[in-house]
């Protein structure tokens, strides 16, 4: 399932997520945002994998922030990502 959103005053972000047996098995985040260092995108996407779509926002947020604690995300926030992820898994 895919959800694409232009963040107000930010960037275009697309989330492609596959849920199987109640868990995320694949997560792809693409778009014209920035993340330093860039390779951390793998850790960011991996933070969603294995997650149940019913996991609370705060738990998901903690999980993501832990995964990219040494990285800086520009043009999209963790809250934006969670919102787009929710829409994609509706």
């Amino acid at each position, binding site marked *: 399932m895919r959800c*694409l959103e232009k963040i107000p*005053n*930010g*960037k*275009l972000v*697309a989330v492609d997520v596959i849920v199987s047996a109640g868990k995320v098995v694949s997560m*792809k*985040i*693409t*778009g*014209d*945002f*920035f*993340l*330093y*260092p*860039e390779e951390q*995108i793998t850790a960011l996407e991996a933070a969603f994998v294995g997650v149940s779509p019913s996991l609370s926002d705060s738990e998901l947020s903690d999980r993501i922030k832990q995964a990219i604690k040494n990285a*800086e995300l*520009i*043009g999209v926030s963790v809250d934006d990502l969670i919102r787009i992820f929710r829409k994609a898994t509706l």
Partner: protein
Amino acid sequence: MTKWRVLSYQEFDAFTNMAIDEAIGESVSGGGSPTIRFYGWKPSAISIGYFQAIRDEVNLANCEAAGVNVVRRRTGGGAVYHDQVGEITYSVTGKVNLFPEGIVDSYKVICSWIIDSLALLDIKAEFKPINDLISNGKKISGNAQTRRNGVLLQHGTILYSVDVDRMFSLLNVPDEKIKDKLIANVKERVTSVTAQRPVSKDELYKALFDGFTKNKDFESGKLTDTEVIRAKELAQVRYVSKDWNFMR
């Protein structure tokens, strides 16, 4: 005072251009001079941001038919059509401590050099966060930055003349149903140097050279042998490769 190396305008293919920027980053990381580089794209090319999905962004069949190269950048940001005639690209590479720590603040500093350059042509431009420059409310320059190994690389393009219809024959749009509306919208939102003032491309380059080097200690230089060899290697192992360009 920091001594900058300035590399004069040269045209290369897309893969070599991205490889040279990376090779300069490595040499700066190893103690080489901070570097300002001006370049063009021969043949015309599309560069996509690190996080973009190539098939979402690029009409690969049309690019191939038109002889337009497609390359993934090491920097984030959006897809850019680099027309061989219609733009000048720059890169700025230096140790991170030469620039403000904040990402947007550091964009602002380097973008101010473009603003100074355009002012020399009587073109007024302003910084629009995160990474754009606008003139009369329309985008005239896009920029992208990365930081690694203590080095900041910012590269960006200054639009000299723009052909939005050609651009959209090479790029994909998120929703084909609204393509016409989107093209009309981009025509409204994008400008170029020639749309503002009747100046030659040489005049634009001279203004960029003067604006970027203003108040700096600099010398005109060239790539070192090590950088040339490394750039060739990076072009082959990374920027030409399908693994890299199709990784997303």
